[in-house]
């Protein structure tokens, strides 16, 4: 095990190398660029044995990744924001083709106006593509999640692509200490990919031709079944990794001081990490708060959320919004708890990279506790402070 100090973007590159990805196709976009640069440098220096395809767009990045993955090799790519949106068609294609591609997406908001800071609008807009979608709260988690993702994606019963998300700049360009396990440990955990199907001229098959409605519906159903099966596999894979390396970030959810909590904050990515700080402060004030940091947005951790007592009040903080609807995570949580008595409050916060500090989160929880929160609330005001609710 070696301890290094680096940004999440470089750590993502290290993870692709450690996973022995064989083909990497990527196109640069802020703030993902240093992933691409780092990987290309590693490959040029002979430190990373892979083919790098420098494509002319993100649509082509995913198309090339699909082509390579279809030959049976392990593949990696990275993108962000508009790049992810430009890939959208190919994201569907990768999932329906049942290709276990792993991609990191650095969560960045959408223009116009141009804004390069973190929110989750980009990945939430890919909710229905069939990809598993994980969200990380630290650089160590980025490394561990990329490695674990290959194992989950390539499992025979899953065979779906995985998007590993982390927040622009808050993690992508922030150095943190990360422990990299020895390569033999990683190789043992993650053996060479065994493709379920592949393009091979000695065994010709036609993939993706016209399909009538009946088998099409079955194929979609089997994708859903794989997503459902992944819930257990995400947890057992994380447990296996913990045994080998000692690192643990939770299964589909990272639960923090939630067991006896009257109020639980649900959030994703670094906002979930920040919520842990808020909860520690609240606990000092004898307010029994806890955190559910959602690690796996797809599949959504319905059973874990259902374990919460019906008396628990939920504070769902969204960094994305479904216009004309509500916060994306807020909707998911309400849907998971359908028919139960829990009171559920939602905040739209941090859009376009607006800072959401632990102080903000403390105030959100207190607003719920004091009966001042509406079902749907918006972060307001300057300097990260909540000055009121809409």
């Amino acid at each position: 095990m070696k301890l290094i100090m680096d940004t999440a973007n470089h750590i993502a590159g290290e993870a692709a190398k450690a996973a022995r990805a064989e083909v990497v196709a990527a196109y640069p976009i802020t703030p993902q660029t240093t992933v691409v640069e780092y990987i290309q440098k590693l490959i040029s220096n002979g430190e990373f044995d892979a083919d790098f395809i420098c494509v002319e767009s993100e649509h082509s990045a995913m198309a090339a990744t699909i082509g390579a993955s279809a030959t049976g090799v392990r593949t990696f790519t990275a993108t962000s924001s508009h790049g992810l949106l430009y890939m959208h068609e190919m994201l569907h294609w990768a999932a329906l083709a049942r290709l276990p591609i792993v991609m990191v997406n650095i969560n960045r908001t959408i223009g116009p106006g141009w804004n390069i800071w973190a929110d989750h609008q980009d990945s939430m807009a890919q909710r229905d593509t069939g990809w598993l979608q994980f969200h990380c709260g630290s650089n160590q988690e980025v490394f561990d999640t990329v490695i674990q993702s290959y194992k989950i994606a390539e499992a025979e019963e899953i065979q779906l692509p995985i998007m590993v998300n982390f927040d622009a700049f808050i993690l992508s360009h922030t150095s943190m200490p990360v422990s990299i396990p020895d390569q033999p440990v990683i190789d043992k955990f993650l053996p060479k990919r065994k493709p379920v199907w592949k393009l091979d001229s000695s065994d010709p098959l036609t993939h993706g031709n016209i399909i009538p409605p009946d088998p099409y519906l079955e194929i979609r159903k089997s994708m859903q079944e794989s997503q459902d099966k992944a819930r257990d596999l995400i947890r057992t894979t994380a447990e296996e990794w913990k045994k080998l390396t000692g690192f643990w970030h939770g299964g589909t959810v990272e639960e923090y001081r939630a067991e006896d909590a009257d109020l639980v904050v649900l959030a994703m990515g670094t906002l979930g990490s920040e919520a842990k700080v808020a909860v520690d402060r609240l606990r000092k004030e004898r307010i029994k708060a806890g955190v559910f940091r959602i690690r796996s947005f797809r599949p959504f951790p319905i059973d874990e959320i259902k374990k919460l007592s019906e008396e628990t009040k939920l504070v769902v903080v969204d960094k994305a919004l479904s216009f004309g609807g509500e916060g994306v995570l807020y909707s998911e949580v309400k849907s998971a708890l359908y028919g139960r008595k829990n009171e559920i409050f939602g905040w739209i916060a941090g859009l376009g990279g607006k800072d959401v500090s632990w102080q903000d989160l403390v105030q959100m929880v207190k607003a719920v506790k004091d009966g001042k929160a509406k079902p749907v609330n918006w972060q307001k005001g300057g300097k990260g402070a909540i000055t009121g609710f809409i």
Partner: protein
Amino acid sequence: MPLRDLSKEELYLPGSAACAGCGDGIALRIALKALGKDTIFTVPACCTSVIESSYPNTSFGIPVMNIAFAASAACASGIRAGLRRQGKETQVVVWAGDGATYDIGVASLSGAWERETDFLYICYNNQMYSNTGIQRSGATPFGAWTTTTWKGKEESEKDMIAIAMAHHLPYIATATIGYPEDLHRKVQKAKSIPGPKYIEILSPCPPGWRYDMSKTVEMSKLSIATGVWALLEVEEGNITFNGRSKAILEGKIKPKPVEDWLSGQGRFAHLFKPKRDEERIKKFEEIIDQKWQRHREGKL
């Protein structure tokens, strides 16, 4: 190689879903005889994605990866990289219509050419979006009726061969299904050259061009005889004409009147009925004349 000596192995299998008289079907059969079994196709949305027939059947004896409309050349780059990792030298071939090539996929095609991906891109050009119901593409000629040019297209087609040449490809060729030996030779030649190759096959389409399905080969040959289409190869930037096109270029034979080609197709009927549209017929002839004038100067 005479037709009778071509491989007897059929990799374009019987029972495909092609229209009767489909030019693409002929192109597939001949090209696959030249390419052989150690070939992987990637096919964007186009007539071929229908001709493949529907799951769980296939009309191909080689692996085929269907891919989104704009994505085939990028997919080929990925397939090539994946095969390279495994030490395989399988031919990677994109088989795409003119809509995917000239229009929606031109960025990914340009990218793959610039990256010098080792693959063969074959565009079977039927001069329209036939599969979606005969809409105008960047390859549709001046004056042609389509379902998005009801009174005839007002612009000429773009010059895809010139675009290919601007990428300095080691091999570029045109062909048409009426001359299968020529098509076979060009595909075989492309197969022997490493790097990115481009072949464009003029592929007449009975429902789109509006002629009787029995006349596809005739229509293909007439395209050459009238000079509307030319058989050529480009190697290291040098353009050489072959077959009847060479004879036309050298003035050894006189091209048939362009009007013969136009009047045989229902998509140009409005140029002749209810009354003759002298102006547009003349303009079409001028477009072809100017093209041959450029050819005589060694240009496209």
